[in-house]
């Protein structure tokens, strides 16, 4: 019974990966078409194209976005969200479908184990990527962030792929050290925080590219990534990235505190500079720097975005390298 459920969980995970791969292709196609479309509308604004454009805008009209100031609004309504290709819609539906399979895989894993499905690297990867896609889908209800789809599905595919090849383990009982309700709280919040950091990172990367393009426009240089024309301005992206990252930062702060409380229960001290503690602290400090940078003259914009990029690299390092290769009290969570 458990054996077959376990196999079903793996099967669902592989199916999810297959569907995400298709979604990735469709998102990538959409990006390519955005580039082509942007070229058509800006360089050769033929009457036909313009009429088609107006029709599409009228069709999609109605909901206005209220998250930006008027100055941003003008530019964004030209560029953002109104034009959508068929491949984008297909990609989004596929992502949702993949998420459904992914969710089933994760729940089955939990059912077989008889506990929360995040107690080893395979389970972290399975649940972590699930939450990344989940947060992506959730944020899309409020803001149109589908242009990040290629990044999200790509990242999730790579992480799941590595995990499936290197970290798959059969269900084993929890060692005494992990038998605590703090496993549920501490790790779950860390995973959700990581998902928000991932989206924040993607937004910051697009912000950096967009800023570069805006400068190219100002200086009259040729622009390389035309698909950026269909995306929000760098200022809007910065605001979105900031909001995503501060949510993640608060979750991360909670992770730190909850981890300290658990450490006090399990190891007798709330803080001991264990390697994992060190890296969690480093990440916290980097993002604290990111938040300060937003209020520092000369650091708004691209510089703070680079800090978000560095911060997320540290998050990935903490998960992928520190868990596996560094000696420390958290190493039992690896295998």
């Amino acid at each position, binding site marked *: 019974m458990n054996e077959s459920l376990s196999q079903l969980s793996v099967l669902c995970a592989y199916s999810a990966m297959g569907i995400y791969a298709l979604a990735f292709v469709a998102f990538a196609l959409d990006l390519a078409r955005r580039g082509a479309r942007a070229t058509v509308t800006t360089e050769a604004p033929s009457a036909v194209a313009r009429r088609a454009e107006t029709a599409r805008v009228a069709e999609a009209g109605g909901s206005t976005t209220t998250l930006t100031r008027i100055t941003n609004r003008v530019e964004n309504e030209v560029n953002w969200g109104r034009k959508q290709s068929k491949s984008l819609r297909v990609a989004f539906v596929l992502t949702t479908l993949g998420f459904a399979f992914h969710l089933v895989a994760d729940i089955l894993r939990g059912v077989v184990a008889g506990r929360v499905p995040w107690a080893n690297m395979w389970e972290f990867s399975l649940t972590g990527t699930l939450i990344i896609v989940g947060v992506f889908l959730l944020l899309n209800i409020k803001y149109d962030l589908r242009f990040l789809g290629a990044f999200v599905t790509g990242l999730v595919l790579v992480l799941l792929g590595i995990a499936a090849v290197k970290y798959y383990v059969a269900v084993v009982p929890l060692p005494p*050290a992990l038998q605590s309700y703090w496993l549920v709280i501490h790790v779950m919040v860390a995973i959700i925080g990581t998902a928000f950091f991932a989206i924040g990172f993607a937004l910051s990367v697009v912000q950096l590219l967009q800023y570069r393009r805006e400068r190219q426009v100002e200086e009259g240089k040729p622009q390389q990534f035309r698909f950026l024309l269909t995306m929000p301005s760098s200022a809007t992206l910065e605001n979105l990235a900031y*909001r995503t990252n501060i949510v993640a930062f608060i979750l991360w702060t909670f992770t730190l505190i909850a981890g300290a409380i658990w450490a006090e229960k399990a190891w007798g001290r709330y803080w001991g500079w264990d390697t994992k503690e060190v890296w969690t602290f480093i990440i916290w400090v*980097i993002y604290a720097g990111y938040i300060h940078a937003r209020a520092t003259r000369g650091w708004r914009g691209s510089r703070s975005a680079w800090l978000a990029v560095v911060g997320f690299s540290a998050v990935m390092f903490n998960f992928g390298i520190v868990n596996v290769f560094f000696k420390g009290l958290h190493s039992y969570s690896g295998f």
Partner: protein
Amino acid sequence: MRTALFLLLLLAVAAVPGSLVPQTSADPNGVAQYKIDHPELYPILKNLQVFDTYTSVWFSAIYLLLFISLIGCVIPRTKHHLDALRAKPPRTPVRLNRMAGYTFVTVPGGSLANIVDKARGILKSSGYRVVTFEKPGEASVSAERGYLRETGNLVFHIALLGVLLAVGVGGGFGFVGQRVVTTGQTFVNTLVNYDSFNPGRFVNTNNLSPYSITVDSLDVKYSNSNSDARGEPLDYTAHVTAKTPGSPAEKRTIKVNEPLEIGGTNVYLLGNGYAPEVTIRDAKGHIVFRDATPFLPQDSNLTSQGVIKVPDGLAKQLGIIGIFRPTAAKTMANGPISTYPGLKNPKLTLTVFSGDLGLDNGAPVSVYALNVNKLKQIAGPAASSPGLDLKPGQTAKLPDGLGSITFDGVKRFASLDVHHDPTKTWVLIFSVLILGGLLTSLFVPRRRMWVKAIEQADGGIRIEYAGLARGDDPGLDAAVDALAAKHRELIEPEPVEVKA
């Protein structure tokens, strides 16, 4: 802000080396191994205090500077904020159309005072601090909210200082001690009974709270049914009898995630293992040694190693290095190893030495190590007699007619950590304040709102609405729109022209 940012980034970078190199506090054996593996690099890193990164001069300097810069920032901001809390919202700007969310309506007539009063009512009931201004032909209300944002910000930063202070004080008045207790033994909480003890600077070690803990039994469960996890530990539970003066003895348990709270300390079960019970008799059959000696586990199947020392009672001093295997492998193909952590095929393998144990000069010697410099191997691979191999209940003769040794049975031992940290509750309180302060400082919007009514030449009244964000405020435009909509419903007569 630039200084704070610089120091934050520096702190992040400075914390990295401590994760790459073993730390004395967390992993002293790792440091010793590092010295062997990297003989050239070791002295350099040692001088740079890299093995004690988080207490090093340079790391401390960075975070102390950061906190000094923090204090320098928090004090003027607190003063400024206290002033702001008492101040009224500022005068309505002359031109609202430059402000965020600007929108206006025109009504055919009505009283300026009445219109502004309605707006004032709405703003006040939504938590704004309001003040009205009037001049000929014009009336306005200026409102501000979100003072909690700055309060939260200040609470966050002050709580960070609180954590640092509480941790520092806790380090001075707390202590950590370890003691290995074999089942049946009693640990009494006085300094001499600890195997190791690390007190803070201000701890009075003569004044430890008097209590005793008897380890009655230690239950250990290993996984047996799941073929993927055979031998994985499932549960460690120490059943103890705890006694404090003036109250009856209590039966309690200590588990891995459930320490025992007693006498202002927490007692943790951080390790366990086997303690083989051995009786040694002299040539005439008199008992010279009988004890359960804790053997240190060497692997996850509890292949354990220990040392038995018999300084008195025999013709020569006797030292024994023992390997205990709870489930001895059938063959010695992989050496003397255990294949399962439970007691399925217990075996004690002994290498016996005789001579001078080196105990007589009074210098402290580890009970887990045997200095063989002045000892001669009399049974074992390097001696003429082979090593001794015993199952529980078996007896073997010691070489040279020294006597005999009996393997009576196996007990378990618990490795207990005793921690006293008088400020941890304070650390928790400040941590909660950090989280609360962070939430309010990042999510409470600080904003100003204005509603202005202006008499027009044609007798109508133009009502303008606008806002100003102070800090990140994604909902400002929506808030101005909502205010305008609500206000329009309240004013009579119906507005004739609505324009954004």
